[in-house]
């Protein structure tokens, strides 16, 4: 793989009993990518993300972050190497405020979260960075109320904020706009679109309008294997994709 490959997998497979959920997938995500991973339900998209983060161990294959083999490393080590994710279903801290949650994510990133003898209030840099990030994601007005009281759309933004707080080089977004009305999902993707170019983004998304608008490259996964990959216009024209996934409909 080339040196500007942010994340690459080769021949990655995972079996659950008799089912092969991800089947010999080879994929390279270059630095600065805006890659959409699409495919029908049960195609193995979320399983693939779980393999990348280390939540699941592959049956075979290899995963590299920035050229470094991380296949045997755990989630923590991969996070330290710059891999970060969001969840399809909100995986937040309901009782913490967004401000506390982002401070916590930053503290874990900087290895400050083991410090028990100093008050959090004394960590000026952490607090300032958290405020900046919350401002950037338009969460600053809600930053001091408990997360469970937040509107659903704001909770989806907080999902991304927590992932961004670890300053990732590779960001994996698992249906960032899941459950959000079409009009509001643009707000979520506007945030993704505004990310700096040195962050590589892989996102799973079902809304094809969003996919074709925000992805620079699309990978189609069906039954655990890559059916096709290419630029959005190539994928739109691809006969196999139309037949297997887009159902021949106009997109």
């Amino acid at each position, binding site marked *: 793989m080339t040196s500007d490959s942010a994340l690459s997998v080769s021949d990655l497979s995972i079996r659950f009993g008799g089912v092969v959920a991800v089947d010999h997938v080879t994929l390279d995500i270059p630095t600065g990518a805006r890659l959409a991973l699409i495919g029908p339900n049960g195609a193995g998209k979320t399983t693939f993300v779980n393999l990348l983060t280390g939540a699941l161990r592959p049956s075979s294959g290899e995963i590299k972050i920035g050229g470094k083999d991380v296949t045997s490393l755990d989630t923590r080590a991969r996070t330290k190497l710059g891999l970060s994710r969001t969840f399809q279903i909100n995986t937040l*801290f309901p009782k913490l405020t967004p401000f506390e949650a982002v401070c916590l994510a930053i503290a874990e990133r900087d290895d400050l*979260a083991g410090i028990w003898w100093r008050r959090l209030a004394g960590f000026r840099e952490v607090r300032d960075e958290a405020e900046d990030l919350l401002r950037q994601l338009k969460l600053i007005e809600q930053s001091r109320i408990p997360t469970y009281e937040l509107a659903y759309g704001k909770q989806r933004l907080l999902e991304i904020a927590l992932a961004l707080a670890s300053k990732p080089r590779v960001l994996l977004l698992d249906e960032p706009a899941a459950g959000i009305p079409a009009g509001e999902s643009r707000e979520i993707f506007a945030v993704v679109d505004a990310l700096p170019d040195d962050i590589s983004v892989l996102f799973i998304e079902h809304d094809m309008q969003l996919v074709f608008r925000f992805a620079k490259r699309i990978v189609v996964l069906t039954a655990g294997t890559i059916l096709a990959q290419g630029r959005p216009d190539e994928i739109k024209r691809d006969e196999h994709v139309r037949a297997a996934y887009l159902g021949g409909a106009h997109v």
Partner: protein
Amino acid sequence: MNRIRLSARQLLALEISFWVAFAACYVIFPDRLYLLTQILIAGLFAASLDIALGYAGILTLGHAVFFGLGAYGTGILAKSGWGEPISALPLAFIGCGIVGYGLSFLIVRAAELTQLMVTIAVVAIFEEIANQATGITGGSDGLQGILIWPIFNVFPFDLRGRTGFIYTYLIVLGLFLLVRRMLQSPYGLALQGIHDNRKRMQALGSPVGGRLRFAYAVSAAVAGVSGALLMQTTEFVGLDAFSIDRSAMVLIILVLGGAGRLYGGMVGAVVYMILRDLLADLSPEYWMFWIGLFLMFIVMVGSGGILGGLSRLVRVEKP
């Protein structure tokens, strides 16, 4: 429902009033200093359990292990010639902290029911050791003839319990401030995060197991000091220090006050101990029945104990 708003400053004022009021009891109830000292010790013990249960989410019915170790350890030390009280406390703290850290490897990774089983088993083993090692522990007669030296060699532990109360009050307050600081630190936030959503903490790269083991060790250390305080103020340790009864009582006190709230243990201890004292006076034969009835009432009225109930009326503004 409109909730009463409390700023962080007002909350601090409440905390200070609590401790001032407790200190004032020294003057107001000079005849009840023994009970007040017991309340402080039970409150500290319950607060130690809260670190493990309320904050780290570790189910335990064996916290008396550390209470008993602190009590017996410092008691045996005093019997063998070192009855200086203040220096015994860091020993109890560190000793129980180390034992707690060792046990945490068994307990933190286990599933909840397994945690209960392991903690009950450990406390039963220690109780039996204390029962059998008669030469060292006095067996079922308990550790008798302990002599605690005067504090700074000036203030002896008097029969009315004045020295005992002031000494216990200061130590408990000091440890409370330490625990309070810990809960306000980045580490305290990480503990809340683990309790709130372990999956996300793992995704953030948090070493969740290590964080929980440390919490269990601190919890054990503080429990050890509370045991040592009981031994020093009563100059006696019995087998009940290691009993499952004591583990269950501290759990009841914590649940009554409200787990995961720093002051839950202390409030629970105040209510439980005073109630027990009153009921034992009013109805010496049936006080356990009334206590049971009261506890059932509290649980039925609302989850989260006394402080949990109050927190639904109050909203604390976060800085």
